[in-house]
């Protein structure tokens, strides 16, 4: 009911007024890949221990835990995941909450954890994301992932997630002249970056010929346009900025973060080449950070499919609508280009353990902010942006971090 909607700007200003600055003081990841001998819990515990160790915070000071996970019950047959994971990592008594927002589950967990620190509920919060996917067959994984769409409409027609993004790609090609070569440029770049990332799932450089000739998954997308089915976990620790120096000399300040939503079904959108949730999350995060797209020095974008990185680069304001393909093909988003995107290898090459992806992106941004990205290190690394997308655009979380 539009008549009853609160004035958005007014709510947002109130929200910003009572907020205290927040810092990420620790990051921890597992490698992403196919790990037949590892279960969901052991992956999550490893990432959490790494993050707590990196933060050098006594575990007893952690006051709340938020876990991003998409489909643990379907993939691993386990529910009640937040306390299940937390207790194994040595955290008892504290409030533990699982957040499910499809592929944006841990981005959403990060947003809610940030909120609880920013608005004074807690002084130390642990956030993790985890997914264990490779124990299921590909048709079963495809079926589980399709559940992030509208199962009554597009799901009943047989629309897989690759198919939804294939339809976005087809329309983007029709409206803006985007080509198969543009999509391939994203895949080639992200594979080249991932090949240099020791924690990436597929460390393999690919050529243009390979990228164009991949096995079709959902035309016009082939296997090289699709992110990987992976196992993995990631975790971070948040505290108020004024306390961060107690634990570390190299924290990351959260300059801006926003979570937005939209209809789940792709066919409910007027123009499927645009994700309104991305635009709105970006607007809010930029406003909070007092920054614009031109101030962003590098980014981790949600390239669940090559076309998704192209659309996100447009919706975040890095380039004009329709220019995302040529931008990637010209090398502008490569390491060494004016705006490096997905220096981690992205979901394409680093891997996409769905529930771990959002927090994983934050960890990858912070590696760059700290100057710890090794062969992948970008030159300008003071301000980075992460964009985490759920489904075909029904949830988006945009986070802007600054080295502090």
């Amino acid at each position, binding site marked *: 009911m539009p008549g009853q909607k609160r004035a958005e700007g007014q709510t947002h200003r109130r929200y910003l007024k009572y907020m205290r600055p927040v810092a990420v003081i620790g990051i921890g990841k597992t490698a992403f890949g196919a790990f037949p001998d590892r279960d969901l819990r052991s992956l999550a515990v490893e990432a959490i221990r790494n993050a707590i160790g990196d933060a050098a915070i006594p575990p007893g000071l952690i006051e709340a835990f938020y876990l991003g996970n998409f489909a643990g019950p379907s993939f691993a047959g386990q529910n009640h995941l937040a306390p299940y994971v937390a207790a194994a990592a040595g955290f008892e008594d504290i409030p533990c909450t699982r957040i499910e927002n499809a592929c944006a589950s841990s981005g959403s967990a990060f947003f809610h954890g940030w909120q609880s620190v920013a608005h004074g509920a807690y002084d130390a919060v642990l956030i993790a994301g985890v997914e264990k996917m490779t124990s299921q067959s590909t048709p079963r994984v495809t079926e589980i992932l399709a559940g992030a769409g509208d199962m009554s409409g597009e799901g009943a*027609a047989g629309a897989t997630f690759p198919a939804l993004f294939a339809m976005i790609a087809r329309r983007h090609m029709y409206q803006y002249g985007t080509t198969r070569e543009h999509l391939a440029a994203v895949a080639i770049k992200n594979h080249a970056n991932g090949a240099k990332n020791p924690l990436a799932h597929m460390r393999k450089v690919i050529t243009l010929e390979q990228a164009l000739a991949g096995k079709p998954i959902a035309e016009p997308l082939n296997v090289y346009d699709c992110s990987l089915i992976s196992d993995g976990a990631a975790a971070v620790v948040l505290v108020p900025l004024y306390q961060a120096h107690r634990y570390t000399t190299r924290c990351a300040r959260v300059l801006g973060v926003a979570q937005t939503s939209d209809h789940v079904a792709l066919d409910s959108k007027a123009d499927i080449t645009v994700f309104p949730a991305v635009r709105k999350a970006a607007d809010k995060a930029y406003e909070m950070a007092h920054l614009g797209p031109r101030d962003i020095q590098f980014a981790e974008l949600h390239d669940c499919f090559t076309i998704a990185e192209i659309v996100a680069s447009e919706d975040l304001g890095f380039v004009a609508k329709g220019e995302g393909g040529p931008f990637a093909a010209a090398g502008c988003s490569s390491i060494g280009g004016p705006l490096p995107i997905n220096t981690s290898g992205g979901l394409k090459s680093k891997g996409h353990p769905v529930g771990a992806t959002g927090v994983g992106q934050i960890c990858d941004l912070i590696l760059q902010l700290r100057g710890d990205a090794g062969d992948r290190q970008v030159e300008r690394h003071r301000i980075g942006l992460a964009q985490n997308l759920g489904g075909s655009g029904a949830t988006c979380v945009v986070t802007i971090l600054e080295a502090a």
Partner: protein
Amino acid sequence: MESNGPREGVVYTEAIVHSAPGQFVADAPYQIAIVDLEDGNRLTVRILGRNPDDRAHIGDRVLFVEERQGTLYYRKAGKLA
């Protein structure tokens, strides 16, 4: 099965699914499309046909064929059923 919905629409976008979810593996490869219907609604449907001529492109007219187990089947207009 009878349907009271619009019988005709125009393809807004489409894709050919090769890697299908478990319940549709036997159908693959198959075409799906988002279709703009005469009444202004937009739906995701299955396009019938296995020949290259049956393939619907953006802007093509499609006709309703049937609804089976919740899946809406259309075919490209101008083709024999």
